[in-house]
């Protein structure tokens, strides 16, 4: 049977189209019940013959039909194994897909994993259950009617098959819906129907399930409360506002330091818009796409100088005024920036959040506050009965809604990860928080690996250049198992050297369009946590077959230059090769070999030659304006037994580090040049945009307080002024400036050369006109793409369509950029986590430097741990007033005869604040200079010496 669906559609250009789709109705769609004798189905076991009802509400055997609103709002509940004999109607599936892709995806997953419990009935194509839209009926009403029609069809259909059975044992169809009108009409039609929360609560075998019920809006008891937040505008008004320019659309970022502040970055505007206070933030959560209205210019303000954490230790109820005051009271500096308020949310970017429960005064109660691990996310109010068990666990929570009457968003508990403080749990949290794919590799991926034992075939050797005779060695950090680069050096004639950089040929193993390739492309990068490595490709490749191990024959992709003694490149050559590394040095070993003049073997000589050339190369690069920036990097010494950190060491910088780096840069640049020449449209390159001038403001300010005029007009000028900014009495000051400068930089990004104008290829940090990543294909997917491009360019491999498609390349690049950013965040969090673990059993006094002076706090950097902390200037016992005088222009804080300014050296005591077991944080207390009421006593005689103390006390 054929009918047609007619609907009208407005095209983007404003045309009205009448669309007609043919719609076929069938009479051979089975009902899916084991009981049914009428349908022609075989072996249907989805819907049981005699379903057991665990619900007290409807004790009779029944099948369940769910309405769309349950899928849309209660998707987490559906994941439970409590659901059996569920009929999913096509109407529901389609409506879900239209309304929420996310939930649709989740529903598909549930359906895939629980095939035996969910039966999809294609009611839209069944001749008896199809309903046509009536004149004057809304699409929603029509769908509701279709659902009811399917219910009653099932009812009569099943009745026919169980004639003669006891009335009480007859299977009925129960409709679950939240829609009041639908329920009412279903009742009239004789279909048993319940609300999902009623039903779930009546399931006696699954008492925990109701925890997962999303808070429903209509029933929240604060209906009659005074709204705390202004209204959001309707989508149509937002759209027209944005079109007319009255409103601006942008991404909301909440501030890390002050939970009542945030910014919205609007595309195409240099300065982001500042938002202050609850009303202006108006329920936006970090990452949301929002509509902002700018305030008149006389109401513009500047970010407040205070550090404000939402420190409520208990649920404060729905009150927001108190904190607002704090914000208003704070002094503001003079320069103001565009300020606005959020009037509407265009797209929510809510995801699931990891965190912990806030200890409640009433642990037996059901309403609790949840504190996300991510500081930028507000606390979330959830309902749970398991607070007592959950209070010691890390849990995952999803936000459901944020009504105007509630101070915090409402959410529900999703699942528990494990005990707080457990390293595995914490690792899991940080991987989840940063969206790092860390599941083990699936079978399909492992099937792509070569079988062991693996040998290089004769054929393969013939295809490649045989470089096994060369004295190649690798230099890496200690404990490195994925060695992806090796070097060689050879004197051709007194003034002519040959240098080779040999990179693991991962593209030989990871062929395009295989499951392995797709997995690697999705992971994008290997993530190095302090105690764990999450590989991009399976370990067999990363630590064995691709890794350029010493004394083993390996496939490589080599870049070979001929250079003069002045490091001038005469000839560049790229080739696929077979190599045999003679030795895997660590940086320190290599350094020893260079320094020890007794060592006269070939490798030591090579290393010396390489080192000499590297120094020239580095100098050339610096002269061109490359930046030497600094960010504190540390390494944990991990106990072999407990895997807990026992000591912290800063990574030492040796000559050999920079030597390897120099040749990698050279290889990258050479390769970038070459692939861009061959593929001007689709070469995968890396650029580092020039930061806009406004980025440098905090940096310039900091320089001024130290009496340096810093020039940021170009990278060369910046490098020069950084070099000049040295104070003999404060050696670390220069490093601090470099740290600050690093924070002004933009993110370097991968891109496809066809999508960006050639002038923008520039790499600001390296001062290179063109750059790419070629040297680490084991741990970065971008390098793998570059390998493929280069292989095609030198005729060693064939192309495939995606490789040459600029759009595909850009899409890949976008993913890589995202993964790369996330992996960096994850690595940082991992370090922070281990710092926590490190301080669990110790208190230590350390040197620290003031990074920022705020109105109510000092932010200090402890270089030894690369740790940042805040010292709140409010006295140890809470409310005792300290007469600190804040000078926002300098900025400085003065108390009595002590003045503290940016970059000053202080001594602090670092410990783990374990007042609350659930919410441990690193606490930083001032030891030196001594300020009565604020500083704490040193636990040991600090190693600081007199002159420094004098300087601090010198004051004004």
């Amino acid at each position, binding site marked *: 049977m054929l009918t047609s669906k007619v609907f009208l559609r407005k095209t983007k250009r404003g045309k009205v189209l*009448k669309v007609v789709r043919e719609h076929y109705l069938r009479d051979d769609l089975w009902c899916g019940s084991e009981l049914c004798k009428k349908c022609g189905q075989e072996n249907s076991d989805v819907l049981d013959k005699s379903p057991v009802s665990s619900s007290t509400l409807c004790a009779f055997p029944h099948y369940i039909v769910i309405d769309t609103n349950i899928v849309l709002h209660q998707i987490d509940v559906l994941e439970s194994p409590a659901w059996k004999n569920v009929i999913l109607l096509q109407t529901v599936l389609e409506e879900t897909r239209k309304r929420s892709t996310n939930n649709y995806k989740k529903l598909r997953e549930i359906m895939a994993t629980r095939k035996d419990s969910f039966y999809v009935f294609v009611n839209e194509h069944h001749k008896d259950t199809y309903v046509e839209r009536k004149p004057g009926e809304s699409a929603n009403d029509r769908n509701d009617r279709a659902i009811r029609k399917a219910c009653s069809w099932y009812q009569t259909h099943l009745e026919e098959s169980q004639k003669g059975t006891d009335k009480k044992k007859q299977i009925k169809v129960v409709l679950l819906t939240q829609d009041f009108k639908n329920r009412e009409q279903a009742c009239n039609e004789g279909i048993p129907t319940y609300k999902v929360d009623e039903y779930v609560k009546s399931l006696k075998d699954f008492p925990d399930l109701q925890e997962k019920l999303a808070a429903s809006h209509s029933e929240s008891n604060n209906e009659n409360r005074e709204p705390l937040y202004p209204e959001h505008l309707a989508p149509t008004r937002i759209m027209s506002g944005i079109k*007319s320019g009255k409103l601006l659309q942008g991404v909301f970022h909440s501030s890390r330091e002050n939970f009542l502040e945030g910014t919205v970055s609007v595309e195409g505007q240099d300065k982001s818009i500042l938002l202050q206070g609850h009303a202006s933030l108006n329920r936006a959560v970090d990452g949301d796409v929002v509509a902002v209205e700018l305030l008149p210019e006389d109401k513009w303000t500047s970010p407040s100088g205070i550090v404000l954490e939402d420190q409520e230790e208990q649920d404060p109820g729905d009150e927001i005024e108190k904190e607002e005051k704090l914000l208003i009271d704070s002094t503001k500096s003079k320069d103001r920036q565009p300020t606005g308020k959020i009037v509407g949310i265009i797209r929510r970017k809510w995801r699931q959040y990891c965190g912990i429960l806030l200890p409640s005064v009433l642990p037996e109660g059901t309403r609790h506050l949840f504190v996300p691990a991510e500081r930028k996310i507000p606390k979330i109010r959830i309902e749970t009965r398991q607070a007592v068990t959950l209070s010691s666990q890390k849990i995952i929570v999803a936000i459901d809604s944020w009504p105007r009457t509630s101070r915090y968003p409402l959410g529900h508990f999703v699942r528990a990860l494990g005990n707080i403080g457990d390293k595995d749990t914490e690792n899991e949290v940080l991987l989840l928080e940063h969206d790092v794919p860390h599941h083990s590799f699936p079978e399909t991926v492992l099937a792509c690996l070569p079988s062991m034992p693996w040998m290089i075939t004769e054929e393969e050797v013939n295809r490649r250049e045989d470089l096994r005779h060369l004295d190649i060695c690798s230099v890496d950090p200690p404990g490195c198992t994925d060695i992806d680069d090796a070097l060689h050096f050879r004197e051709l004639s007194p003034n002519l050297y040959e240098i080779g950089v040999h990179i693991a040929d991962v593209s030989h193993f990871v062929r395009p369009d295989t499951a392995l390739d797709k997995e690697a492309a999705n992971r994008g990068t290997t993530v190095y946590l302090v105690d764990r490595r999450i590989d991009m490709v399976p370990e067999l490749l990363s630590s064995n077959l691709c890794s350029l191990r010493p004394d083993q024959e390996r496939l490589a992709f080599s870049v070979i230059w001929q250079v003069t003694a002045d490091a001038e490149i005469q000839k560049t050559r790229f080739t696929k090769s077979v190599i045999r590394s003679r030795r895997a040095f660590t940086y320190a070993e290599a350094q020893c070999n260079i320094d020890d003049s007794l060592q006269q073997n070939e490798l030591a000589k090579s290393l010396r030659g390489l080192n000499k050339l590297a120094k020239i190369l580095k100098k050339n690069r610096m002269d061109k304006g490359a930046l030497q920036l600094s960010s504190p990097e540390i390494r944990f010494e991990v106990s072999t037994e407990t895997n807990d950190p026992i000591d912290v060491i800063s990574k030492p910088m040796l000559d050999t580090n920079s030597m390897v780096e120099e040749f990698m840069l050279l290889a990258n640049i050479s390769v970038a040049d070459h692939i861009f020449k061959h593929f001007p449209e689709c070469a995968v390159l890396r650029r580092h945009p020039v930061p806009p001038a406004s980025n440098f403001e905090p940096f310039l300010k900091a320089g001024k307080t130290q009496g340096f005029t810093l020039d940021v007009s170009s990278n060369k000028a910046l490098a020069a002024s950084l070099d000049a900014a040295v104070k003999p009495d404060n050696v670390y000051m220069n490093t601090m400036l470099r740290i600050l400068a690093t924070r002004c930089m933009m993110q370097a990004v991968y891109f496809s050369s066809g999508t960006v104008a050639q002038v923008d290829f520039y790499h600001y940090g390296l001062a290179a006109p063109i750059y790419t990543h070629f040297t680490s294909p084991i741990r970065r997917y971008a390098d793998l793409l570059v390998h493929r491009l280069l292989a095609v360019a030198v005729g060693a491999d064939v192309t495939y369509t995606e490789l040459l498609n600029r759009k595909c390349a850009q899409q890949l690049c976008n993913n890589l950029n995202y993964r790369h950013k996330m992996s960096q965040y994850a690595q940082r969090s991992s370090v922070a986590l281990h710092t926590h673990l490190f301080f669990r059993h110790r208190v230590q006094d350390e040197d620290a430097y003031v990074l920022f002076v705020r109105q109510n706090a000092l932010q200090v950097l402890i270089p030894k741990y690369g740790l940042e902390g805040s010292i709140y200037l409010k006295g140890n016992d809470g409310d005792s007033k300290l007469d600190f005088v804040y000078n926002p222009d300098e900025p400085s804080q003065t108390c009595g005869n002590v003045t503290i300014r940016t970059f000053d050296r202080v001594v602090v005591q670092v410990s783990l604040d374990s007042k609350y077991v659930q919410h441990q944080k690193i606490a930083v207390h001032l030891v030196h200079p001594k300020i009565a009421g604020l500083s704490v006593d040193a636990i040991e005689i600090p190693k600081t010496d007199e002159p420094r103390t004098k300087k601090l006390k010198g004051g004004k």
Partner: protein
Amino acid sequence: MAEILLSEAEKAYIHHGVQDDLRCDGRTRLDYRPIILETGLVSNASGSARLRLANSDILVGVKVELASPLPDKPKEGRLEFFVDCSANATPEFEGRGGEDLANEICRFLQRSYASGDTINLSELSVLTGQQCWVLYVDILILECGGNLYDAVSLAVKSALYATQIPSIKVATMDGDQPELELSDDPYDTKRLNTENIPCVVTLMKIGNHYLVDPTPEEECCSSSGIVVAVSGNKKITAVRKIGSGSLHPDSLVSMLKTGSEVGAVVNTILMKKLLEEETLEVSQKVGFMR
């Protein structure tokens, strides 16, 4: 138009029949042949009709589209006619063979609808000076069985009667950019007032008499005739003379008079039938599967 070969004897036979007011197929001079009409059978179109008058077979589709109104008529929408003579009708239409006839019909339709009395074009206005509906009336001649003008005009009127114009609201005015909002209910449409849309009556003169609804054979025997477009309120909106022969003023006047009378009757009957079709219980469309 398609020529038919007739012998002198056959022509004389037709002549005599007309004289005696009994035509070859048994009709009197002012009788129409049976008409089969169905609307709404092209689901993709906003309105459609298929009409079969004996062997004349016409399919009309109306498509509505938004466009900007003409500068001199900012408050009005417009109608655009397009006639296509299918080569199915007669081999002569192949290639560009049917173009002359198509243009002729098209022009006459345009002329007969041009009068302000026929259709209220301001109904089609959406936003003065900015947006209006344009009705594209596409006429497909599938078979020629004589009296094309009448058949086409009836089919067009029926199609316009069935046309559903989506209801559209001007949601917001932002600066001078209107934001049009389309109702999501496909049933939420409006219809044109087609009461006064003209029907065309062709009167052919054979001997001293004239007749309506000529068959191709009768058209062959006639040397002249007129085509009259009569609106619902009995007004003549367009007249055109066809054939090479001349007409005496007296007979012209009397033909016009008869034409307007016949037109009015056809109009009422058509409206009645269309209404009847609409009130029918929903049934399968017959279309071409008969």
